[in-house]
């Protein structure tokens, strides 16, 4: 189904991230870029071919070489309750969402708090491709080629103080553009958090894209968290605030149902969700389920973060 609507933003008003990042090539490519942006303005479904490309992306040794989940599945099967609770809702209902212009507020226990526009926020860092497994708490999984920057590099720029023990994140609150926020299915806005060492871990990234292109609205545009050894809901989307805190910050699913969703929410086949087993998962596109791996297969890199902790208790 293809529903054409008039563009909500005039193409001329968009200063897109990709355009910014490729500003030196702008003259050379302006015709092409213009086309790509015109395509973004309309709410026709995004395909791998029409998504706005990012350039100068480095490969990473932290990427997996597993088979990628197709772009169509990654962008049409989403849990993003701000746009509705069905998997197809985010792709269907996020056409009006405006990820540009965007700014991120940095607050709390750090030397350089302030509000930064997204381009300045990203500018000092080189984009990397990180192909990660994503394991949803609902026992399905994907392999997604994210484009992003290590969260640690970003956080260091704001010089967290010795009191910064946790990092808290907040999603934008825009009921006008996010129809799911008009009903209190969860407590809005969505909030998430990491312990400082988790946030500083090299696997943790802030993603601005996937499949070499700008992050589609339904995947958390323009800026989202990706923590591959944790259940997907820890990867908070459309981030507008990052705060360094001394105490463990509240997290949305934990508020909604603390028995089922803990602060840590590390992928752990031994600790079942109270209502279903976490021992197996269905990789999207596959028929037979596969065994879920400890820390989603990233145990070698992250298990040491949790030595001495009872993971049945700190689920």
């Amino acid at each position, binding site marked *: 189904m293809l529903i054409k609507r008039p563009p909500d933003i005039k193409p001329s008003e968009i200063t897109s991230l990709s355009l910014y990042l490729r500003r030196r090539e702008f003259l050379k490519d302006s015709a092409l870029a213009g086309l790509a942006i015109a395509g973004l303005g309309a709410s026709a479904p995004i395909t791998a071919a029409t998504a706005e490309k990012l350039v100068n992306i480095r490969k990473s040794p932290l990427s997996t070489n597993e088979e990628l989940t197709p772009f*169509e*599945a990654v962008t*049409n*099967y989403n849990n993003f*309750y701000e746009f509705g*609770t069905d*998997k*197809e809702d985010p792709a269907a209902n996020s056409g009006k969402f405006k990820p540009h212009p965007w700014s991120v507020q940095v607050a709390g226990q750090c030397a350089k708090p302030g509000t930064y526009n997204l381009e300045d926020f990203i500018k000092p860092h080189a984009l990397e491709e990180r192909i990660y497994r994503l394991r949803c708490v*609902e026992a*399905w999984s994907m392999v997604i080629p994210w484009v992003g920057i290590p969260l640690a590099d970003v956080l260091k720029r704001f010089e967290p103080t010795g009191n910064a023990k946790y990092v808290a994140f907040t999603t934008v609150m825009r009921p006008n553009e996010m129809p799911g926020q008009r*009903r209190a*299915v*969860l407590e809005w806005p969505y909030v998430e958090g990491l312990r400082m060492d988790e946030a500083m871990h090299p696997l943790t990234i802030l993603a601005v894209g996937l499949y070499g292109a700008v992050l589609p609205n339904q995947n958390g545009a323009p800026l989202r968290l990706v923590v591959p050894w944790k259940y997907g809901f820890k990867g908070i989307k459309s981030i507008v605030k990052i705060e360094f805190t001394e105490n463990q910050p509240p997290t949305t699913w934990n508020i*909604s*149902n603390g028995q089922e969703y803990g602060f840590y929410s590390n992928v752990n086949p031994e600790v079942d969700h109270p*209502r*279903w*087993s976490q*021992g*197996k998962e*269905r990789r*999207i*596109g596959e*028929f*037979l*389920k596969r065994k879920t791996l400890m820390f989603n297969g990233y145990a070698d890199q992250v298990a040491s973060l949790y030595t001495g902790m009872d993971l049945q208790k700190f689920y």
Partner: protein
Amino acid sequence: MRDRLWYGVFLCGLAPFLWLVFLVVSDGLGANPIERITHFTGDWQLNLLLTTLAMTPLRRLTRKNVFIRFRRMLGLFAFFYVCLHFSTWLVLDQFFDWDDIVRDIAKRPFITVGFTAFLLLIPMAVTSTKKMVQRLGPYWRKLHSCIYVIGTLGIIHYLWLVKADKLVPIIYGSIFVLLLVLRLPVPQWLKDLPPLLPQTGNQPG
């Protein structure tokens, strides 16, 4: 007996299944087809169950026996969709992993109640023929009042499996309760109320 109306109702009951077959062959089930089939057949089991339960109150309200004529067929369609729902779970989702299947039935309350509802529907389907109605006599009625338990379990099954948005199962539950209330006998005090008199005299003279 198999007149146009019969075929029409039959086709309506079968239509969701035909639509599902179309989605399967046209690759229209999305990124997670097994989940989609599971939800689809589960939804239609509940839809048909509630439709079946609506027949008695509809006859009561309209005084038309036509609704009772199709109660059995609709009930059997509800059974048909629950069979699809159950076998989707057994074959496509679990792929005969008996250890996991048994563990899930025992450990996961939403599966326990769903499975119980499915089991209870089997004797109802088996005894749905005219011969069985005659053979069982008064016991048939008792056996088939199981449907109220099954409906309750089905709605609990739905309510317990959703993560946060309980709106749809609550809507199903409300319709179910309404259909039960519409079966209650009219209480005597309501029958005893004097008839309403036509309104008069409220226009300024």
